[in-house]
């Protein structure tokens, strides 16, 4: 029983990590339809931001907190730059976007290697986050995972609110639902696209900060994550945040359970088989957005 609850928590926390890395993509890929292979490198940028900040601000707790907004802006700015210089010119050619952003991701990896060196680096976690909370019955809940869970929850709430109630959110939804109609209604779609990209990429930066609590920071950390992120968004259904949220946690629990019963590699295979089977049944994903657009 103890193990079961412990495993459930592990699954939920894997889900929280998946959610964090997929949330930004749910916006840029899910809402805008841009296949951005460099999304993983924005996560890496967020992680390196934390590392650099810790060199300046040595108190691990403060540097982590300050890293959150700064990583958001750094990764967001990189996203906007990418959108303005390349993606904007390729909106009509989604397959070219895939290749171009993949090239950008390779360039960014090499850039990280040149700046920080190819060996991975580490940050020190604040003492508070290296411990755990012991619940009755011998269950322990790791503080860093609780923090990531809270961060993922906070990001979802903030993003949902932003999309529902702010004027920018309304414009984003309008552009997603029908770009042409939004344009003729006077919505500056190019600027909305840019803002959407800023927020989506910024969320990748936040995910990067969170990941420094779990593992090392290195030039290739993004490539390891990008596939999982795309899986979550595709299975969750394009254009819907709630699909992303549900699928992230479902895959997390499935992975943790499978891994507990078998081994890590077998669990990965199980997850992939489940995804393939699910997409056979519902190719459009868990939730779909009904729009009147012809595309």
């Amino acid at each position, binding site marked *: 029983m*103890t*193990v079961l609850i*412990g*495993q459930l928590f*592990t699954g939920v*926390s*894997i889900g929280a*990590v998946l959610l964090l890395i997929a949330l930004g993509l749910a916006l840029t890929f899910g809402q805008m339809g841009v296949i951005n292979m460099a999304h993983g490198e924005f996560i890496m940028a967020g992680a390196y931001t934390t590392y650099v900040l810790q060199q300046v601000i040595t108190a691990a707790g403060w540097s982590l907190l300050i890293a959150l907004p700064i990583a958001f802006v750094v990764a967001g700015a990189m996203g906007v730059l990418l959108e303005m210089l390349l993606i904007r010119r390729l909106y009509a050619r989604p397959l070219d976007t895939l290749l171009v952003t993949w090239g950008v991701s390779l360039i960014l990896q090499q850039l990280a290697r040149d700046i920080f060196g*190819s*060996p*991975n*680096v*580490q940050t*020190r*976690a604040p003492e508070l986050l*290296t*411990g*755990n909370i*012991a619940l009755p019955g011998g269950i*322990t809940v*790791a*503080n*860093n*995972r609780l923090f990531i869970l809270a961060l993922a929850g906070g990001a979802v709430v903030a993003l949902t609110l932003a999309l529902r109630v702010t004027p920018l959110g309304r414009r984003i939804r309008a552009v997603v639902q029908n770009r042409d109609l939004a344009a003729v209604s006077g919505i500056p779609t190019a600027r909305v696209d840019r803002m959407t990209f800023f927020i989506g990429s910024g969320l990748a930066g936040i995910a990067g900060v969170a*990941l420094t*609590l*779990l*593992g*090392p920071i*290195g030039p*290739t950390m993004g490539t*390891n994550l990008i596939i999982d992120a795309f899986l979550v968004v595709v299975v969750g259904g394009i254009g819907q945040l709630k699909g992303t949220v549900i699928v992230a946690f479902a895959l997390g629990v499935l*992975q*943790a359970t499978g*891994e*507990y019963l078998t*081994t*890590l*590699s077998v*669990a990965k295979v199980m997850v992939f088989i489940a995804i393939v089977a699910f997409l056979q049944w519902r190719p459009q994903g868990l939730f779909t957005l009904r729009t009147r657009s012809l595309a």
Partner: protein
Amino acid sequence: MTLIRGRRILAGAMTLVAAAALAACGSKTTDGNTSAGVAADVSGDTVKVGLLNSLSGTMAISEVTVRDSIMLAIEEINAAGGVLDKKIEPVGEDGASDWPTFAEKAEKLIREDRVAAVFGCWTSASRKAVKPVFEKNKALLFYPVQYEGLEQSPYIFYTGATTNQQIVPGLDYLKAQGTTSLYLVGSDYVFPRTANKIIKAYAEANGMKVLGEDYAPLGSTEFGTITNKVKSSGADAVFNTLNGDSNVAFFKEYKSAGLTADSMPVVSVSIAEEEVKSIGTQYLEGQLTAWNYYQTTPGAANEKFVAAYKAKYGADKPTSDPMEAAYISVYLWKAMVEKAGTFDVEKVREASDGITFEAPEGLVTVDGATQHIAKTARVGKIGADGLITEVWNSGEPITPDPYLKSYPWAGGLS
């Protein structure tokens, strides 16, 4: 931090294919004299040796320290008069963390530079890639990293530990501590799987229980479930053969789960002083490692080595087991050459048996039959300062046994 280590065979099959292809090409173009080998050029007043390490790419972090140690030994030997009255002239090549490149550069060092011996390689993959090149050309390689055993090339001297000088003594130590159950965690490739096979055979013969065995792909950073399994197994100790960055994620998770060196110690075989520095003592303090040498190993020879290394490369640079094994490999070669009275490879090999050297790790003896060396095994505890302090040693050098032939329980392994 990439700590991917020695013995480790990544993409082994691919490398072998590449190396075989390369060897095939080589033998075609240079048909006439392959069987005879290439004699080293010792006509001048210097003798060339090759240094073959990755100076770029993912392995550079580790292999550069090995190169530095070899250079230190060469400088010291030259200052004392050289080998057979000839100064050593090092010729460096970059293996670039790419196994076919290692084979290509080895061929170049042997054929073009006509070196008397080559020092280097780290991963098992690179060693396996150059092995046919050295065998074909009848040239010598000194390999300085502990590895998975089960190998014995007539043209390679292995100055790092084989399994019976590191893993088996580590298990002996745990057994003496009263450990009756183990949990095995490793990276998913040849070295950990081979090592764990040996550990399971040992455990069965010694009344220990292996409560679980889990592998994570190289580079994996998600250890929530594995840590949960380890914790709920209630094992007395964990035997860790994880390699590279996975160690960082594993030890972070381990601490978060409330497991400590007191409640469930972890014995690692791939974490030396360099790696401790990069993982962070915050997570490692009190945990155990099995090696043959630590920076803190007592003795005049080690004090001299540590002082010389720090004087040359910086006071903050730690010395570690693979660095020490690389350093002594040059001295062992010198002793073999002087005993043989010539640089001729076959004569040097014949002279190798019984060569001894007062190494920083203590007295080592070359075993001519296996071309490995007898070394003292050690278990150490990681301290808050990042250094490792010995808590146990085997008392005397252990005779190398790469195929574990003298261990009855290991009968079914090789």
